């Protein structure tokens, strides 16, 4: 009975197998590369949907959290600890947390294990989310939107301006992330199929956790906060804590997706941190139906895939602007009002309305 809620997750993974087999059979496996990237972007949008759709708190700064995850991956994986190893580096080496590779010129580079940098990314994101989130999440409406937009822009100007962060060029020689055995997050074509599955499993995991959360006591509390803060408070819900919790959660989801995608792409640049990227995530959540994780995932994968394939041409950004306006004018409840059973939201709410 309790397992029934995971049926859609299983269907998602089955669909992934179907897509992979079909594309490989049609000799079109290169589509998998863009699908993999789209999945990581979609994961960010799913996290944002928890914050925006369920808790009703807008964020225009999620590209900032994505970039924090991605840049942490890039900085720590490209710093060569073989040059003047300090006491810290030696200690890490003794614990077996350092890896070696050769760069293009045959020079040996000693770098931190990505597992350690993943932990660092999570810690850093949590710290930033606390510093920015604790005061900002108390703001309402326009004020929250502007504050999160401001946060995103500060991240953007920081990565653009800091010499240690590659300035306008960003990073381009980030190695793969060996997960276990032959499994590695890596963009080279030999790793294409397994990386598609890695991204699918990560997406499935986020969907499972997100799906659990929205059906739980906290999930109901978040929707209650969205629909009436004062009433929620009168029932004993600590509104500020609930909002901050979901803010932190969605920031972490964005950072982890950024971390993986940076290892997959082999680099990251300031364009990942722009306000336009944050608005894209917002547009995907809006068109996915706001409080609708499955709609957000589907739209996230679909729109990002089209964008990465160049389907929108020079109107790439404009498309997302048009989507925002069109959804708000034509279908403010989202375009997925009636989903078939396993994907249907519980309770038939459309929490996006308020």
């Amino acid at each position: 009975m309790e397992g029934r809620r995971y049926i859609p997750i299983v269907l998602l993974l089955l669909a992934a197998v179907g897509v992979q087999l079909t594309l490989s059979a049609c000799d079109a496996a290169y589509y998998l590369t863009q699908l993999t990237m789209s999945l990581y972007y979609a994961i960010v949008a799913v996290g944002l949907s928890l914050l925006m759709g369920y808790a009703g708190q807008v964020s225009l700064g999620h590209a900032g959290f994505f970039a924090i995850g991605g840049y942490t991956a890039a900085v720590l994986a490209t710093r060569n600890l073989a040059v003047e190893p300090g006491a810290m580096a030696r200690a890490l080496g003794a614990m077996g947390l350092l890896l070696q590779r050769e760069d293009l010129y045959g020079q040996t580079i000693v770098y931190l294990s990505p597992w350690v940098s993943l932990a660092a990314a999570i810690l850093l994101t949590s710290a930033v989310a606390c510093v920015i989130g604790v005061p900002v999440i108390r703001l309402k409406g326009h004020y929250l939107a502007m504050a999160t937009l401001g946060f995103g822009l500060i991240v953007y100007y920081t990565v653009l301006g800091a010499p240690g962060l590659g300035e306008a060029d960003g990073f381009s020689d980030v190695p793969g992330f060996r997960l276990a055995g032959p499994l590695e997050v890596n963009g080279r074509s030999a790793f294409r199929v397994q990386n598609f599955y890695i991204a699918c499993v990560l997406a499935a995991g986020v969907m499972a956790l997100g799906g659990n959360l929205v059906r739980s006591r906290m999930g109901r509390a978040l929707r209650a906060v969205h629909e009436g803060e004062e009433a929620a408070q009168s029932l004993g819900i600590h509104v500020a804590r609930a909002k901050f919790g979901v803010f932190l959660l969605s920031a972490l989801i964005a950072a982890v997706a950024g971390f993986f995608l940076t290892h997959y792409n082999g680099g990251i640049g300031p364009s990942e941190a722009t306000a336009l990227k944050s608005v894209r995530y917002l547009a995907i959540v809006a068109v996915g139906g706001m409080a609708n994780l499955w709609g957000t995932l589907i739209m996230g994968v679909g729109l990002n895939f089209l964008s990465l394939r160049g389907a929108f041409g020079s109107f790439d950004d404009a498309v997302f602007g048009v989507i925002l306006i069109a959804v708000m004018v034509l279908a403010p409840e989202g375009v997925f009002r009636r989903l078939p059973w396993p994907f249907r939201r519980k309770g038939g709410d459309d929490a996006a309305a308020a």
Partner: protein
Amino acid sequence: MPPLLEVRGLNRRFGGLHAVRDLEFDVEEGRIQALIGPNGAGKSTVFNMIAGALSPDGGDILYRGARITGRAAHAVAAMGIARTFQTTRLFPQMTVLENVQVGRHIRSSAGFLAGLFHPPWSWREEREIRRSAMETLEKLGLAALAGTTAGTLSFGQQRLAEFARALAMEPNLLLLDEPAAGLNMHETAALATLLTRIREWGITILIVEHDMSLVMDISDHIVVLNQGAKLREGRPAEIQRDPEVIRIYLGDDHA
């Protein structure tokens, strides 16, 4: 045993207006106590200060002998003090059942991590939340509406559903802000029955109300406010006969 709720020397100003001055009263456990007074007497201000929605400028509020003055609304609620609103504040897009399930918030504990990972102990808690929410709905005769979206209910049903949500908290003290406002005579009569039933369940009620016949009907004890200060308190029969109360308050209707 101290009274369930004690109000001691309570004061609140809004700019130049001294809305509540040196107010003192007790709410004894097991009673239905009413707070009445003409418009602008400060009833709602007192109510909101007890519920934690407004902080007083001076004085103390004690619950079971412990100070709760100035505590945040969610903390007051967590101590077992439930409230309803003058205009009902259900969560309109959620179902009636979900609304009442949110009422179980303080009686359950699953946080973000448990929500995300859904461990077996939280299955049991979730089932328990659902069961007790349904039980509350049945008690109030709302079981048939469990799956209805709250925003689509009729006015009277919404008020009842808000009661259910508050009762799901298993409160010791229930604060009611003009529960009869907007109800017709028939519904008001049903409300009176319901309130006496709630008292039988061992829940103390503090009610702010305009409907005098309702207040006189059901209250065990009445506090009359005038211009922010206490004018009289006593049993309904005493209040009804008090010339001062009749002059300042009932005068319009009964004099």
